[in-house]
């Protein structure tokens, strides 16, 4: 990876006393499709708006191609935005909407005409040049909004939940169109959404935010398969998160104990007596009546829920905690009331430090580093 096209360094945003973005560091690479994902109020939209220039930065720097743009106005930044509700100019035709940016740049009329025509062709709105926004459907407005932003050849295109107002079918279609458009143009897209499925299907990388903090950044696969925090595991897809306690760390793996059983798992970087989370996706969880090496977690089948392609089974553990698992509907199912043992493939479960432990480790590491520096 080369020089990032956008770099956020220790960016803080406060509204009055309220910190909505806390010391955010984020590098966005040239040409990638990066999604800011998180629940509402996590600071993702604020982050996008700071990049666009609609919100001032309380602390920190935002670099666009190496230049700090934190103090520049939106009209001085080489980025363009596609707004959540499209924000088309209601008093202008489709053509005039798309040409807006070029008119501001004082591009020659003949060139504007030609480029607008190209854009209209690209977003497949031929024949609608003279329409007013009020006469268009949501999907068409969306295309106008995209064309209006892209005609300026921005270095980065920012998209603030642009598909939120569309119905499901149209939304799926626009998702793939947007993705293809991005691939073809090679422009960096920064996309904000709260819809994890949308994020997973469209993105090259996903940055998961929560409470103004960047929880994890990685490819969709990394985010889904190897969540680094409990929040990510919970938020992306469905996950069973179990509290556990490390009793022993040995060559064979770490021994963990839960309220309702114990297991031996392969993992490194954990210490004895540490509290951990075990995260397993429902589709990776399996059950059997027989004993399984290393797993000793028993429960009772409580109910089966048929949901189409798969069947969802709820198993109640001895402690009363319920775990969910899904299996292909063709699989034979244990009858309700059967006592089963729960297990998963070693590489399909994730063990996470709890927050306090992370902090503890961090302090320890820092002390070590500092100690080392002193010695040197």
């Amino acid at each position, binding site marked *: 990876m080369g020089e990032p096209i956008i770099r956020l360094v220790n960016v803080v945003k406060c509204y009055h006393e309220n910190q909505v973005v806390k010391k955010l560091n984020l590098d966005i690479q040239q040409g990638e499709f990066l999604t800011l994902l998180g629940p509402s109020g996590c600071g993702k939209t604020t982050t996008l708006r700071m990049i666009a220039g*609609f919100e001032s930065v309380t602390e920190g720097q935002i670099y666009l191609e190496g230049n700090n743009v934190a103090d520049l106005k*939106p009209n001085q930044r080489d980025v363009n*935005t596609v707004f959540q509700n499209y*924000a*088309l*100019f*209601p*008093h202008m035709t489709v053509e005039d909407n798309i040409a807006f940016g070029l008119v*501001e740049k004082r591009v020659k009329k003949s060139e504007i005409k030609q480029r607008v025509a190209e854009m209209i062709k690209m977003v497949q709105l031929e024949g609608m040049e003279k329409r*007013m926004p009020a006469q268009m459907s949501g999907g068409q407005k969306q295309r106008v909004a995209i064309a209006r932003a892209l005609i300026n050849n921005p270095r980065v295109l920012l998209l603030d939940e642009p598909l939120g107002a569309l119905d499901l079918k149209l939304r799926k279609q626009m998702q793939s169109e947007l993705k293809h458009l991005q691939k073809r143009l090679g422009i960096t897209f920064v996309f904000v959404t709260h819809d994890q499925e949308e994020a997973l299907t469209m993105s090259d990388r996903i940055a998961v935010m929560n409470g103004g903090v960047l929880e994890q950044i990685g490819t969709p696969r990394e985010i889904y398969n190897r969540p680094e925090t409990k929040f990510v595991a919970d938020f992306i897809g469905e996950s069973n998160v179990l509290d556990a306690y490390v009793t022993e760390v040995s060559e064979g793996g770490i021994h963990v104990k839960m309220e309702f059983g114990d297991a031996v798992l392969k993992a490194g970087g954990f210490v004895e007596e540490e509290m951990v989370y075990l995260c397993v996706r429902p589709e990776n969880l399996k059950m059997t009546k027989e004993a399984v090496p290393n797993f000793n977690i028993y429960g009772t089948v409580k109910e089966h829920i048929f949901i189409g392609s798969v069947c969802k089974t709820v198993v109640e553990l001895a402690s009363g905690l319920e775990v969910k698992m899904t299996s292909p509907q063709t699989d034979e199912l244990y009858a309700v009331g059967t006592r089963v043992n729960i297990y998963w493939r070693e590489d399909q479960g994730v063990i996470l430090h709890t927050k306090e432990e992370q902090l503890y480790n961090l302090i320890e590491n820092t002390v070590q580093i500092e100690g080392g520096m002193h010695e040197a």
Partner: protein
Amino acid sequence: MDTKKLQKSEKAGFAPLSMLYACLVYLFLYLPIAVVIAFSFNTSKTNIIFEGFTFEWYAKMFDNRQLMESFQNTLIVAGVSTVFSLVLGTLCAVGLYKFEFKLKSLVSNSLYIPIAIPEIVFGIAMLVFFSSVHISTGMFTLIVSHITFSMPFVAITVRSRVAGFDRSIEEAAKDLGANEFRTFMRVTLPMIMPGVISGGMLALTMSLDDVVISFFTAGPDSTTLPLKILGMVKKGVSPDVNALSTLMILGTAVIMVISQIAQNRLEQRQGGNNSES
């Protein structure tokens, strides 16, 4: 079925009576106007009995220098005060919408003062104020007072239009490279245009209509048409005043209808900011 029938019959019985009532009220409102117009075609010199039909007053009114002067004053005052109150009021309304600041409630409440207090108090307040700063009444004071009472109406009308405004549309303009001024000219102003037009019309008619405040702020050389007529009523009004009034009535009606149509056109074109949701 039953209730439907009942409702229908009720409506059928109700409608003619209510129509009649509405017509009576309209008659009440339009009767004096009709009389003014009718007497402008009267051959008699006095406005008392209708004797015959003539157009002569429409020619003669141009010879009545005092009348023409007051008419001219009325137009100048209305024109100038409308322009000023439009600019001040529109900027203020948009500013109040855009910015948050400490004295905001003071500013927006001060807009309601001229609306709320009786006109006569406002008129005498201006009179004593001007005399205290040694400005003698005349065209200047007249125009200033008209701007003062019509500007709040413009600001409030425009503000109600701006209130339903999607902020991201202005952001979009800036995002596409427009600065503050260009954004205002190319996006904000066109979008609030219907509000600005109706604010302007309000200012114009209020200025043309005003008697009470002008009574105190007009000088001897700057009477407006309403003041002139007021002064003439007791001595008897000659029909050339009716003729001029008729022209003014027609003129106002035409302007109002045109502005109403223009406004509807604009609204329709923009289709409301959120027609879909």
